[in-house]
């Protein structure tokens, strides 16, 4: 150690030391909305103070907050809202929104308006689907792969459990639930590590089997894609079955109750 230490070196040492000494909460980077709210001078005082403490130790967040405050405060003129430019941008964005299942394929105006963009496909019925597809074909040519369904706006609530550890097996609606599948996400660590896993979906409390399928492993998550045509807004029991290597039969690995709500 000597007196010739550079400013950057001392700044690094200070930041690291302060960061290490901070309580757990201050180490977590604020999310984008919080950073935006902070830059605007918003947020409740307690959270604001926590973020200030974080900024003291996290140079990258401090830099981000500064940039955002600067950019948000400046009344720099947006590109003039020329209708044709604006419309052209939207037209370029639209196929991406369709690709993501956020918007419907471009269709003739009346039909497009008739189909609620963010509603679940199940409400369209087969006639609605055929009409939407026909409209898509008319507008875009014969592009089967473009005829995707909108994102599912369903809500999945985990109610209780009839077998296993309730808190240890969180079931949630996966981000990629859209088009024609409602995708459930289950923490793989919370399920016994059977090489094979399948699930049955039963109505609750009638216990009538409506669908069964295998669970896919995606890193630390198990996912279950259920075609929405099999589902209604109601409560279901999910039965998980596991199969060990070389074993003949399936063994029950858990039972969970969930409520699925589609927007009316």
């Amino acid at each position, binding site marked *: 150690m000597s007196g010739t230490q550079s400013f950057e070196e001392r700044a690094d*040492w200070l930041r690291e030391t302060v960061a290490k000494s901070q309580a757990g909460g201050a180490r977590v980077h604020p999310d984008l909305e919080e950073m935006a*709210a902070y830059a605007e001078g918003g947020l409740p005082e307690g959270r604001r103070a926590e973020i200030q403490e974080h900024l*003291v130790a996290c140079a990258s967040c401090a*830099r981000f907050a500064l940039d*955002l405050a600067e950019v948000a405060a400046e009344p*720099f003129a947006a590109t003039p809202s020329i209708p044709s430019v604006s419309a052209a941008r939207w037209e370029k964005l639209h196929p991406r929104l369709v690709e993501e299942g956020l918007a419907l394929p471009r269709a003739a105006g009346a039909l*497009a308006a008739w189909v609620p963009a*963010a*509603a679940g496909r199940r409400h369209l019925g087969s006639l609605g689907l055929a009409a939407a597809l026909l409209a898509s074909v008319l507008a875009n040519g014969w592009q089967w792969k473009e005829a995707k369904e909108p994102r599912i706006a369903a809500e999945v609530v985990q109610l209780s459990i009839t077998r296993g550890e309730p808190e240890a097996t969180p079931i949630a609606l996966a981000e990629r639930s859209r088009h024609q599948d409602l995708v459930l996400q289950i923490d793989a660590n919370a399920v016994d590590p059977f090489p094979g896993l399948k699930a049955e979906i039963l109505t609750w409390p009638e216990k009538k089997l409506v669908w069964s399928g295998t669970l896919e492993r995606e890193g630390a998550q198990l996912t279950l894609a259920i075609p929405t045509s099999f589902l209604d807004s109601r409560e279901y029991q999910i039965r998980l079955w596991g199969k060990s290597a070389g074993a003949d039969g399936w063994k029950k690995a858990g039972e969970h109750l969930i409520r699925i709500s589609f927007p009316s």
Partner: protein
Amino acid sequence: MSATPKDDLELVRDLQAGEDWEENARLLHERYAGLVWSSFQREGQKPEECEDLTQEVFLRVFKNIGSFRYQAGVKTWILAIARNLFLNEVVRRGESAPQHRKQEGLDQVERLDPGQLLPAPWIGSEDDPWESAWKRQQPEIFLAAVAELPDRMRQCVLLYYQGRTTKEIAILLGIENETVRSQLHFAKDRLRAKLGPGGPKPPAKGGTEGTSGS
């Protein structure tokens, strides 16, 4: 027929509810795509890059609109997404554009008001409390002395040693620039009193302390 356009929050609320999704999405896009485009242009991006980045931003906006919590204004939230995307893009390209841009910004400030800039007069000078602590090979005692300062003063000092200008610290902490300067002034006096030649000696360390001076 209502002639009043929906405000941002109404648009977001309707998007979250899935009401007339496409029209509301188009309106939000129409309202802010130009602003986002301009923010990329200010970063020196070419027009076609601005278009691509703007498209990415709105894709993210609409993918994440469901989790918007109404903590921030919609405009600032969209700009935060844009800024974050840009920084990620810069990292992906292996560039250092944000620093470069910031430097330009600092230069502009410097021309306007040199007195507000860091490195501040006392950083690296004989006056710098850090220097005394560092020369004694005890940076910890500097930090311990800083930790004893009142919260606001402590935050100012630590941000100051991150290399922030007093103006930047004022923005980050939401206080006046003059307040930052006075906090730093008092902090320096307190730290010097603690760490300077007349201040307390660092704690003894395994019997090796004091072997060089006497």
